């Protein structure tokens, strides 16, 4: 046994050495780009499609798309950046527009500037603005979160409403319809997570306001849009036309299970809506309801995010080239992800394509993409600032007070006090 080992050992060692050097050679040639993002039906699937396209022309580059929950991506990224060790970080990361300035300002030098490489004039200006600091632009603009009112035609028909009745609604009318839908069908109008201020943000931005003004100062107590938004959410809650949800997956479950008649959210939800083949043909899309205050529109935005390359990445050059090749230039790619995933990209050149003209059988043959594209042009632009997370937390903390009948002005004051203490 001993002899045997002695006889074979050199050979084994030699073999091991040879394979190690072989591995080293392949590692030098094949580059793997690691990407963090969320939503398997949307960002993850789209990034895999983009990776497959790039690998076709660059066979030496492969992609590892890692799927986390959004909050996990954000928290892992923040931890990695704060620790100062780059080993744990990916090469490309997806960041929601609300948080972009926070990362860029808190961790200077952590992200690679792409100003020299990418032609930003071809993108929607508001997307470029959120990733600019001191004249340098840091990311690859990706999807838009233009909002729509998705509704179940079958439920609304049972309640006596035609698709025409769903156009140009006001929020008050929306609530009335909701009450009738519940009366006639027993279904709630919408799912609502009382710990998620998304709906407040949608309504607020539809009237051209945000938690912060153009200079980044807190804009809460004197903000008519926020006041009206809180009022509306309060009315929805007291009219009890919503199914309460605890958390994101629960909220998604309210409409994938067919328990609610409508969804008000960003266009990126389309992939999830369409992931239920048994509901094909039952959905319609209308513009979101409007507030009855000055500056109110039927268009708003929720979320939307962009890709960022880490400065410390070993594959930085390849990562930047990949983003520029696919997301910066590939019009055909944008057509594909629009039709397959409902991704409304922010590359303006991709807006004219044939895909936007197509009718979607899932939505009963409506030209939904053309609609979303039209609404996108009308989204009021606002300054997200760097403290949206803090303001959001303050709003959700006060939502229950609203339902208990506290006057909206007092609620605004409480939100203002909490935000002011948070943003130092």
């Amino acid at each position, binding site marked *: 046994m001993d002899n045997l080992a002695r006889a074979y050992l050199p050979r084994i060692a030699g073999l091991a050495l040879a394979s190690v050097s072989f591995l080293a050679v392949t590692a030098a040639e094949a580059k793997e780009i690691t990407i963090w993002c969320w939503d398997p039906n949307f960002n993850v699937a789209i990034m895999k499609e983009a990776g497959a396209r790039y690998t076709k022309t660059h066979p030496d580059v492969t992609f590892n798309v890692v799927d986390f929950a959004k*909050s996990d991506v*954000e928290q892992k990224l923040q931890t990695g950046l704060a620790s100062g060790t780059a080993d744990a970080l990916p090469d490309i990361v997806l960041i929601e527009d609300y948080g972009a300035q926070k990362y860029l*300002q*808190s961790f200077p030098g952590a992200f690679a500037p792409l100003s020299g490489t990418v032609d930003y004039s071809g993108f929607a200006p508001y997307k470029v603005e959120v990733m600019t600091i001191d004249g340098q632009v840091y990311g690859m603009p990706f999807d838009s979160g233009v909002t729509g009112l998705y509704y179940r035609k079958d439920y609304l028909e049972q309640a006596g409403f035609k698709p025409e009745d769903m156009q140009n609604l006001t929020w008050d009318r929306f609530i009335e319809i909701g009450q009738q839908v519940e009366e006639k069908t027993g279904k709630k109008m919408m799912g609502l997570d009382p710990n998620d201020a998304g709906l407040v943000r949608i309504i607020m931005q539809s009237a051209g306001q945000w938690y912060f003004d153009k200079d980044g100062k807190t804009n809460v107590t004197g903000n008519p849009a926020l006041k009206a938004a809180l009022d509306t959410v309060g009315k929805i809650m007291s009219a009890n036309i919503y199914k309460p949800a605890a958390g994101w997956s629960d909220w998604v479950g309210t409409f994938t299970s067919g328990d609610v008649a409508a969804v008000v959210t960003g266009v990126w939800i389309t992939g999830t809506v369409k992931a239920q083949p048994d509901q094909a043909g039952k959905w319609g899309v209308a513009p979101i309801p409007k507030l009855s205050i000055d500056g109110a529109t039927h268009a708003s935005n929720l979320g939307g995010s962009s890709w960022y390359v880490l400065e410390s990445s070993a594959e930085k050059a390849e990562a930047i080239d990949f983003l520029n090749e696919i997301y910066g230039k590939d019009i055909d790619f944008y057509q594909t992800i629009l039709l397959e995933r409902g991704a409304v990209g922010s590359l303006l050149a991709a807006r004219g394509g044939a895909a936007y003209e197509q009718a979607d059988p899932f939505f009963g043959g409506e030209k939904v993409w053309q609609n979303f594209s039209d609404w996108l042009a009308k989204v009021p632009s606002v300054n997200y600032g760097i403290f949206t997370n803090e303001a959001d937390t303050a709003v959700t903390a006060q*939502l229950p007070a609203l339902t208990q009948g506290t006057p909206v002005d007092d609620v605004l004051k409480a939100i203002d006090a909490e935000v002011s203490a*948070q943003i*130092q």
Partner: protein
Amino acid sequence: MVHARRGSIGRYYDINGWLFVAPVLGLIGLFMIYPIVWSLWMSFQSGRGMMMKFAGFANIVRLWNDPVFIKALTNTMTYFVVQVPIMIVLALILASMLNNPRIIGRGLFRTAIFLPCVTSLVAYSVLFKGMFAPDGVVNSTLAAIGVISSPIPWLTHPFWAKVLVIIAITWRWTGYNMIFYLAALQNIDRSIYEVARIDGVPAWARFIHITIPLLKPVILFTTVISTIGTLQLFDEVYNLTEGRGGPSNATLTLSLYIYNLTFRFMPNFGYAATVSYVIVVLVALLAFLQFFAARERDK
């Protein structure tokens, strides 16, 4: 001569001794003392992410004006004041019941009550979330036996959310404390109880006048441990409320607030360090109070 030799031997042993403890001291210094001192230094700084500046006592001033911090502190103290006594008393009662040799299958009961403590924090929180959902097993059971007419909003009402967190941590940690009491009960001489029984002392009086005084050191120990655990409460709240401490910050704890300040909000490591020192001061104060309350008075 003899004197001098002894001195050199003494020094020889001294050096050897120091050499033996040096690696440990080095590791403690590197992984304990250094982070503690560094976090104290950090608590005097403020800024966004890596852009930190010395701020003196600004963070401490900010504590006073921060309604979210006050809310988190109040919640944490509520958990502590309500939950620790309930759990300690429950663990004591369970321990003395399961110490009774006449109970059949007490090993099984002991294991069953201790078992929650070895389950994964995340797994049980997720399970609780499902069980206490509006249409979950708890609400449907309560409705079936006629206790409630409409489901209790466990996760969406500020009061019930607090109750749920207290139920969760009591469920998990009572067995852990019970094991300490069971071990200590084994050390109480059975003859003391026999004498008391012969003298006609009823069971409840034996519990109050014999068991509790003899368990006092262990009760003190478990109280201090539970206090520290409750003040650092994080996992349950994080998992039950998706890291938000909702509804309406009603379940937000200090640890969760530190986490949010560091990882969810605009990162302010300095202020987060200040809040964590609040926990340190609180734990120290409460432990001191508990030792003071449990001191030997008759000495």
